[in-house]
């Protein structure tokens, strides 16, 4: 049996340290998210008529402005990844059985990936004046006012 070369030496730190980057990400994204979420809550729940004013036309009006498209895209990506990484921490803390832990971590990863793709597609393929609704007099009432100008 060979003796330990240098007892007390720290383990080598070669390669990337993913846990460190996760730790940094939580703080960096957290600062940005604090701004994004309070802006989101203010515009949607406090300003104007608040939650009672939210409908299709409200969303269409927001996404007619690239500012809110960028805002919501950042919110979607930063918040979902921040939340998924937080849930990963919680699962690692409590799910001690290996199989259960792996299943839960996979579930978090899959749900996050699906919602990131879905949410991004919704924002960038959004049609504020869908043809089917424009053709129907009753349904066209649900559209933002700028649709009728076309």
């Amino acid at each position, binding site marked *: 049996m060979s003796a330990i070369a240098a007892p007390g030496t720290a383990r080598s730190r070669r390669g990337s340290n993913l846990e460190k980057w996760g730790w940094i990400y939580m703080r960096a994204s957290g*600062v940005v998210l604090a701004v994004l979420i309070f802006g989101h809550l203010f515009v949607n729940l406090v300003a104007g008529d608040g939650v*009672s004013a939210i409908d299709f036309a409200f969303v269409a009006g927001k996404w007619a402005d690239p500012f809110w498209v960028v805002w919501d895209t950042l919110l979607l990506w930063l918040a979902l990844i921040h939340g998924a990484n*937080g849930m990963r921490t919680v699962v690692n803390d409590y799910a001690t059985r290996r199989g259960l832990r792996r299943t839960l971590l996979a579930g978090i990863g899959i749900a996050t990936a699906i919602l990131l793709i879905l949410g991004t597609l919704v924002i960038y393929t959004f049609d504020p004046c869908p043809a089917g609704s424009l053709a129907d007099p009753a349904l066209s009432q649900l559209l933002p006012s700028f649709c009728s100008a076309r």
Partner: protein
Amino acid sequence: MGAVGTRTLAASATPRKMGGTLYRGREGMWSWVLHRITGIAIFFFLLVHVLDTALVRLSPEAYNAVIGAYKTPIMGLGEIALVGAIGFHALNGLRIILVDFWSKGAKYQRQLFWTVLVLWVILMVGFVPRHLMHVFGGA
């Protein structure tokens, strides 16, 4: 020095309400517990919220029907809980960043926790009456 140490040990050995730790039952523990509970709750809401917003891609009727549920009295109260959870998580998250990166952050972590609570109360005092008007005002 020895006598002081002995006395401290003896004092901490007597059973007290919260045991003999500096952490358990104190500000740091509650900061951690609340951060975790609010974080998990917000994550599950976020999953639902991306799905309900995705309905704008399906049809205006579908989106308006589902978002209508957010305007009911019960959901209106739920939104107060949601904003309360998000507000705490955001403020306490900034506290965590200060504890990690500010040279005096760890020293003042208890004061920072109480600052978080005060700011949270101010936030909710501003939000709750306004939101109740939107939900129950019959607009």
